[in-house]
């Protein structure tokens, strides 16, 4: 029964994720209207046949904006995960493989970043760099790489002592070659799991920053920013706050389900480590 539930969760997670990606790619084809076209006379109009999710405070079609918003979410999500994973893997494997002073330095930086609440650091960075899509990505990647670095370092420490690594070294392979060809392939599965869950985290964090007015700037449609403007019309036009929220929740839930399912498939030891 539990397996079935878990498989169901995995399947629905995969389905939601695929829908999210398709929506993001095909937004121009799927959206019934231009997401930035204003019809100010009909502003705040509730859902109707013509506009299934209604119109926002500037008379823009909410459905079209949500569909285009998926692009922003995924762009931030993928960029953050790719950058964070690349930095984390590079630093984590270097720290784990070489040990010594390099290891201590990298791990102390990790400690400081971990001691600092993540979203607060992201807010601080965006506050000084200025709110924009790229700065959100930069801020989230700055706090995101630590998790990968620690994960990869731990795995590398284990793999480093394996006989095949010793054998490769004995045959004269240089350090970068040993790391890339022999060590990394053995640590990639947990990284994929972490990346999937990190995608959900990044999407949620982007929405939070945009909600605080520190993310994507208007008129670019972002789910978090849509919620902020919707907040001002609670009681007058509730649809403005309700639908972007549903989009965020479905995206985050889908990716979390997918990540959870991948844990069992790719990294069965993960649960044990987490306990």
């Amino acid at each position: 029964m539990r397996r079935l539930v878990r498989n169901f969760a995995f399947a629905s997670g995969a389905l939601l994720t695929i829908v999210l990606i398709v929506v993001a790619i095909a937004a121009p084809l799927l959206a019934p209207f231009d997401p930035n076209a204003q019809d100010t006379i009909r502003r705040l109009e509730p859902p109707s046949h013509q506009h299934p999710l209604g119109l926002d405070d500037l008379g823009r079609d909410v459905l079209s904006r949500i569909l285009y918003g998926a692009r922003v979410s995924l762009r931030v999500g993928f960029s953050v995960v790719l950058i964070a994973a690349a930095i984390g893997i590079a630093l984590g494997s270097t720290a784990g493989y070489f040990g010594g002073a390099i290891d201590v330095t990298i791990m102390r930086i990790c400690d400081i970043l971990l001691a600092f609440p993540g979203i607060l650091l992201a807010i601080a960075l965006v506050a000084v760099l200025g709110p924009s899509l790229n700065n959100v990505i930069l801020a989230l990647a700055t706090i995101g790489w630590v998790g990968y670095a620690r994960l990869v370092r731990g795995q590398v420490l284990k793999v480093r002592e394996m006989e095949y690594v010793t054998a490769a070294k004995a045959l004269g392979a240089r350090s970068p070659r040993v790391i890339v060809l022999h060590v990394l392939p053995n640590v990639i599965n947990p990284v994929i799991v972490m990346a999937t869950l990190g995608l959900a985290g990044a999407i949620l964090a982007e929405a939070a920053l945009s909600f605080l007015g520190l993310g994507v700037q208007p008129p670019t449609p972002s789910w978090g920013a849509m919620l902020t403007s919707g907040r001002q019309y609670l009681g007058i036009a509730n649809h403005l706050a309700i639908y972007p929220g549903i989009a965020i929740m479905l995206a985050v839930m889908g990716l979390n389900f997918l990540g959870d399912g991948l844990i069992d498939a790719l990294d069965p030891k993960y649960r044990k480590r987490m306990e």
Partner: protein
Amino acid sequence: MAQYIIRRLLQLIPITLGIMTLIFSLIHMIPGDPAVQIAGEGARPEDVLAIRKALGLDQPLWSQYVHYLGRLAHGDLGVSFRTSTPVAQEIMHRYPATMELAFGAMFVAILVAFPLGMISAIYRNSWIDNVARFFALIGVSMPSFWFGPLLIIAFAINHTWFPVSGRDEGLRSLVLPAVTMGLALSAILTRMIRVSVAEELNQLYMTTAIAKGVTRVKAIFRHALKNALIPVITVLALQFGSLLTGAIITEQIFSWPGLGRLLITSINTRDYPQVQASILVIAVTYILVNFISDLLYAAVDPRIKLE
């Protein structure tokens, strides 16, 4: 225990210093000339000069850094650009509101999670358990900046039971923000209590107690719960730190006059001394809370100290 406390205290020093350095360097990360950026476009040169002087940006970097640390050591967090009053004053004024919110959220989480987690553990894999687990799933996936507005629509607009925003109506003002912020925590806590209690129910001492004639309910409350609470308390303490950052968003939703809202307002008005000080205070509180929860963990579970 004393040795453990000292060791952990010593570990705090480099981390706190690291965070102070990080916050110090923030102002230098502003692209271009920070003074020009802060003064705004088209500002008079003398204003830019005044800001540069006020921030000490005309000094060499090392001297700025030493001065910054020296001022912090004296409890001087700087002067607000906007109000020209010491930023510490405004922070002291806002701090209780954030704490009130955090404790309120924790209370809500405990109130929901304990019965739900216990029932889930006792009637494992029943429909009640499934409902509780579904709730936990929704709880962790629902962003607070969506849940909050939904609560406002339902309980402040459609039914005018609670105020839409602010902190003027005492306990009534606290309910919706505390529920918003407590939801995610209650979901985490429910899961935790379920696992923890279920584990204890399988222990031999429970079989013994029931064999000796103690009723099941009594055995659960007298024996199992006591042991199950150890990990739960630590999780609760650890999560208090994340409540502090959660408050930044929740305070924004409900216009709650706490530290988080102060931070966002100062960012929008480019009041950098206030921004730096707010971030520092939130971060240091976060570290201290985590430190205390570590000690708590070691106190309730003596095995930790050996590591």
